[in-house]
């Protein structure tokens, strides 16, 4: 009996120790190697950087202007998340207010998007975007809207793709608000816009926060759509990182400085808003 208990404790401790090392070593390698020269990295892979150097970061920001891509990623993420949350809360509100079979139909229509994998969509989407661009260019009364290598274009595409998941998360929550609340407010002469802005949205805040964090992480980290639709001008951080890989092959110190730049904003936000991040990313993964 005693022995089994001791074995259990030991098994637990050993497993936790091993897994902690497996998680931690790659993360610490990134931090430490990003502060090394290539020479140090090759000669002393297991040592701490001595002395630490910021040359890799200087190269990335000064020589390659990484800050431009940082700003692109920031604008893309911010605008996409704000628009997705705005449009999807409106849809969720309408679904809850209308109810009945029309509500179910709308919910089903938007949820259907969850079942379409990106790989099914990207080819026809690319074809469509090319066509739309030439229409916008040929019709004089339309603005010359670009989808390729333009941030507004990329934002429109990301917003459209991400509506489904957001509608799914937020509607699930908004449905739990008692219908009587809206009906009573409507009796008192409140407009739909008022009820949306002053009742539905504030009362759904927990799910909106979850969805917003989930979307932030997805958009900030996305590679596929930037890979398809951006060139030099609208390049995002993840895309810039891909380019460096091609250029630097196995100059890992400089690549790791890039990895740090992409990761640090999210990691800091995670450390401060831990509970929200975990709730958000879990609600996103439960969609299926």
């Amino acid at each position: 009996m005693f022995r089994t208990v001791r074995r259990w404790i030991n098994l637990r401790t050993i497993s936790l120790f091993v897994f902690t090392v497996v998680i931690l070593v790659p993360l610490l390698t990134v931090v430490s190697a990003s502060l090394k020269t290539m020479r140090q990295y090759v000669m002393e892979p297991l040592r701490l950087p001595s002395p630490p150097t910021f040359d890799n970061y200087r190269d990335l920001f000064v020589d390659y202007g990484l800050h431009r891509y940082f700003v692109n990623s920031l604008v893309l993420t911010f605008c996409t998340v704000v628009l997705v949350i705005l449009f999807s809360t409106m849809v969720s509100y309408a679904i809850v207010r209308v109810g009945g079979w029309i509500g179910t139909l709308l919910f089903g229509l938007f949820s259907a998007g969850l079942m379409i994998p990106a790989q099914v969509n990207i080819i026809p989407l690319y074809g469509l975007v090319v066509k739309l661009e030439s229409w916008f260019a040929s019709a004089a009364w339309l603005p010359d809207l670009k989808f390729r290598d333009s941030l507004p274009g990329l934002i429109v595409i990301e917003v459209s793709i991400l509506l489904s998941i957001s509608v799914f998360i937020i509607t699930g929550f908004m449905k739990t608000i008692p219908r009587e609340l809206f009906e009573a407010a409507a009796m008192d002469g409140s407009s739909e816009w008022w009820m949306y802005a002053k009742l539905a949205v504030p009362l759904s805040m927990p799910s909106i926060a979850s969805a917003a964090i989930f979307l932030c992480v997805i958009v900030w980290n996305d590679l596929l759509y930037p890979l398809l639709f951006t060139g030099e001008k609208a390049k995002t951080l993840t895309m810039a990182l891909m380019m460096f890989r091609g250029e630097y092959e196995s100059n890992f110190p400089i690549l790791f400085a890039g990895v740090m730049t992409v990761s640090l904003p999210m990691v800091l936000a995670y450390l401060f808003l831990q509970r929200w991040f975990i709730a958000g990313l879990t609600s996103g993964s439960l969609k299926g």
Partner: protein
Amino acid sequence: MKPSKGIYLFVLPALILYGIFVLYPAFYGLYVSFTNWDGLSAGYEFVGFRNYRNLLMYDTIFAKSVVNNLKFMLFVVIGQTTLSLVFALFLVRNTKANIALRTLYFLPTILASVSVAFIWAAMYDSNFGMIKAILGLFGVQNGPGWLADPDIAIYSVAFAQVWAHTGQLMIIFIAGLQAIPADLFEVAAIEGASKFQTFRLVTWPLIAPAAAIVIAYTTLQSFKAFDLVFAMTRGGPNNATEIIATFIYRLAFQSYKFGYASAASMLFLVFVAAITIIQFKLLRTDRTG
């Protein structure tokens, strides 16, 4: 009081975007899959089922990417589900140390797949890789070529996926475990059940639904692992890590075979749907039986 017709204005902006950029392409893709469109020129021919027939009967790289995807899926589903369940059991109590470890284990989830890919490419690197350096401490000089050896490369990539997402799934299990009423464990203890018996008879039946969610999610995830594979190996060496998603991307955007790639993406959709349905049935009977 029924809402007025104006309520439909709330749906309008989302519906326009969703209709144009999600629903329409899905159907358009089905149409394109029956053509030989190259994505650039205006003209193309209707070729019937030829793309599908070629893919299924003659394309060895497509077959290879399906097999690779299944290997990747099995490794990730088994590895990730087991590890996340085990560590959920270890860390279920809300002590300070446990919460700190959960925070750490969850952290890779928020990294971009591109970052995860680069981190592990560096770990595996055959010249200056960290794994090589660590093995060197133990006197191992000729370690395996993690990403260079076509026989194991796909599993090396799959391990990076497990590394990145185990913590996230562990949280789902912990939520499931904490929802189990404590008196059930007390009863089991009074009845003299061993740890293993308690797990088999009390814990497992009650977290089976969480396990079903974890397995279903992980399966889908392993078909969507485009970013990770593309950033890490681009499908190489010699198509050894090609999965269906990277295969489709390369066909369409590097070889400009839009029609052919669309047919592959339709097969991909059927494939994912079939696996989802099979899994749903299996996990269902598991729960009732």
